[in-house]
């Protein structure tokens, strides 16, 4: 085979793609997998867990910002993660769907005991002793609203609720320990309920767009905006004691890890937590720094810790580019991971969908239903598809890859099928009549002529995949979604952009690389000549009688 520049480039692309799976499969010693849910306090507690473990010599893999309760708990049950911070009230209502007699429901110890024993029985999951503070729902209004309507308790709120607009998180609106229960117990009937992202609800309240919001009692922002938290006078909300939730296998697999995590139990009170949250959410301090400061203050970690925390400074007041520059190593690693996810998902999708499209062209009766079924997959929201993956595949890279792969199948299969089906029918018919075999027709005629349409499908799939891969962060697969998810949770625009901008650049870059591949695989007569141009060709066209006759008319 002659090595033309085109062949060399193709070989390069193929061997690069082949190297990626090898890199992903590299063996490592098993670390403790520490996860969090996507909001500030959860990030912070998970970081404190991680640093305590690291100070005791354990290696840690961080999976911050896992989707929501279903995803984080699903990951724990399937042993995809080892520990994450959870709240007893959430365990009671959102996971167990239990109700306790009123005498017990208000007692934090009773709730903890109930939840701990039920979780051990049902899920083989262990609640560590509580960290020492509660973080219950805080239904909050501005001070002026409280004064105008004389609001002190949730009963007062229910009385005035027909005049008020609520801005609740989607999670809270749907939960039985949220709006549903509040309506039942207090008769809360707001004039309107607006679903708001956690990141914007405080701003919406301060701006007067809504009158009442749901927060967490330890939110740093409650104090910043001088809000009034209404008293739960009917004891509707169960206690939400924070504690580490640990997988059943951690103790046997990594002895001592559970004991290390328990060092934090009983050490954090509500005042401390509110201050720490404020540093993260309001002052924009680095989570690692806030966590290590507190651990040092508690005497749990020596003041000289060896994992680079001291190098990270608050960058609140420096410019955005400076912010990106300071995080270049992390962002580069996230970009590489993102690219690995996209490349592997896309490559496997091409390997499956192109032959599938070719096969369907031979069995056209089932072609449309099959491709239609792949199309239905496209309509499943990415986050839902990722959540479906957890019971089967756990969390991390594998379920993310499967979800991305599923998304990439449709455009590629559709492009291949359509392209091959509609490839120049005269040429295909003539090739058949002159004695080519079906395989020869496929390789010599149909595939080369279909290449532009197939490539269009692959490029569409690639751009979709780069975008969808940002959501992979919700199930702990890493990538550029990690700063996006964390930034959304912390209402930190710079953090969001530090993931979103590289992701956008990556989409353009991937599309650009594929545009070059498209140029290389285009049918010869449509290929733009990069190296030389023949003058003879243009002559042939201008002197052709057909062209002449059309100009005559």
């Amino acid at each position, binding site marked *: 085979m002659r090595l033309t520049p085109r062949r060399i480039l193709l070989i390069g692309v193929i061997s690069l793609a082949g190297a990626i799976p090898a890199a992903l499969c590299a063996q490592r010693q098993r670390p403790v997998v520490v996860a969090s849910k996507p909001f500030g306090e959860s990030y912070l507690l998970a970081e404190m867990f991680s640093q305590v473990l690291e100070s005791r010599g354990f290696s840690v893999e961080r999976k911050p910002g896992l989707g929501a309760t279903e995803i984080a708990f699903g990951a724990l049950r399937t042993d995809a993660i080892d520990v994450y911070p959870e709240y007893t009230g959430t365990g009671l209502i959102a996971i167990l769907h239990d109700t306790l007699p009123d005498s017990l429901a208000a007692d934090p110890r009773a709730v903890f005991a109930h939840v701990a024993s039920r979780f051990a029985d049902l899920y083989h999951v262990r609640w560590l002793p509580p960290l020492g503070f509660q973080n219950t729902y805080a239904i909050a209004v501005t001070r002026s609203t409280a004064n105008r309507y004389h609001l002190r308790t949730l009963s007062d709120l229910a009385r005035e609720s027909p005049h008020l607009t609520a801005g609740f998180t989607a999670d809270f609106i749907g939960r039985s320990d949220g709006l549903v229960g509040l309506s039942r117990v207090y008769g809360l009937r707001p004039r309107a309920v607006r679903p708001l992202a956690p990141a914007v609800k405080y701003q919406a309240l301060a701006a007067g767009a809504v009158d009442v919001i749901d927060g967490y009692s330890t939110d740093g922002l409650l104090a910043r905006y001088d809000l009034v938290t209404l008293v739960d006078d009917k004891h509707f909300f169960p206690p939400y004691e924070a504690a580490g939730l640990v997988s059943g296998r951690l103790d046997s697999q990594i002895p001592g890890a559970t004991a290390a995590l328990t060092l934090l139990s009983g050490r954090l009170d509500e005042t401390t937590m509110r201050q720490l949250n404020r540093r993260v959410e309001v002052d924009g301090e680095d989570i690692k720094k806030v966590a290590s400061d507190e651990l040092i203050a508690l005497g749990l970690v020596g003041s000289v810790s060896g994992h680079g925390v001291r190098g990270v400074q608050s960058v609140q007041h420096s410019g955005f580019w400076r912010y990106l520059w300071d995080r270049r190593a992390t962002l580069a690693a996230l970009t590489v991971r993102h690219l690995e996810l996209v490349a592997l998902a896309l490559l496997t999708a091409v390997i499956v969908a192109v032959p599938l499209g070719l096969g369907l062209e031979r069995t056209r009766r089932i072609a449309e239903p099959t491709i239609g079924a792949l199309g239905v997959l496209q309509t499943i929201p990415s986050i839902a598809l990722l959540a479906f993956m957890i019971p089967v595949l756990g969390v991390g890279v594998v379920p993310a890859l499967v979800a991305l792969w599923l998304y990439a199948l449709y455009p590629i299969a559709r492009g291949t099928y359509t392209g091959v089906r509609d490839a120049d029918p005269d040429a295909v018919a003539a090739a058949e009549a002159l004695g080519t075999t079906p395989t020869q027709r496929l390789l010599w005629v149909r595939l080369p002529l279909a290449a532009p349409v197939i490539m269009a499908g692959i490029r569409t799939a690639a751009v979709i995949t780069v975008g969808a891969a940002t959501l992979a962060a919700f199930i702990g697969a890493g990538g550029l979604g990690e700063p996006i998810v964390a930034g959304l949770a912390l209402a930190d625009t710079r953090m969001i952009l530090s993931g979103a901008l590289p992701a956008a650049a990556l989409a353009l870059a991937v599309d650009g690389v594929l545009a070059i591949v498209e140029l290389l695989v285009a049918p010869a007569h449509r290929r733009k000549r990069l190296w030389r141009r023949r003058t003879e060709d243009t002559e042939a066209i201008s002197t052709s009688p*057909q062209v002449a006759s059309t100009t005559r008319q």
Partner: protein
Amino acid sequence: MPISLAARNVSHRFGNVVALEDASIDVPAGRATALVGESGSGKTTLLRCFNRLVEPEHGQVMVGDQDVRTQSPVLLRRGIGYVQQHGGLLPHWRVLRNVGLVPTLQHMSDSAQAARRALELVGLPAAQFGSRFPHELSGGQRQRVALARSIAARPGVILLDEPFGALDAISRAELQESFDNLRHDLTVTTLLVTHDLAEAGRLAEEVVVMRKGRIEQRGSMRDLIRAPATDYVARLIERARAGLEALRA
């Protein structure tokens, strides 16, 4: 070496539509026969029986002294030249590679040489046209290339399905002339499908008039004019003649 063609009592339907009804023809080796009729007359279906693009339900189709059903379709087709109305050149292959297709399929050692010779025969010097893509040629040139492709491996038979049908009148006349010369030089058996009676008379020794899957009449052009077997044949001749007279007037 030219090969004879024969169809014996061939019938075929597509679903409920009768395409061929008890059709029989004979083309002696080295001779040319034209199948003439309107669209839907079955002429193309009959032509396609000879290279097994259509497998008739009844009757026998012979190429040389062999029933086509005893041969693999792929090998059979490699031995038969074929030109269709819209040449069917592979658009992403240069002219020389297009023409060399069948020689390559037959693993001829000098397929490029065979392609060059075929191009010369249709009046397109390989040096000038060989490295062009089909879209860089005129319609008439493309049909010439298709013709060259059909003869490059020197088949004993060529099947032509309205090969000049999509061309303007001048290109058409030029191509008819070069084909006529070519056929005599190569001594190849020819089966031509056309809706144009004048073209049939000019290029073929025998004309077969078809209508609704049946053969109305077979014979030389002279026979047809002298003694049309049916009203349909008479009308067809009348119409062709009227066309010519309109030109003279």
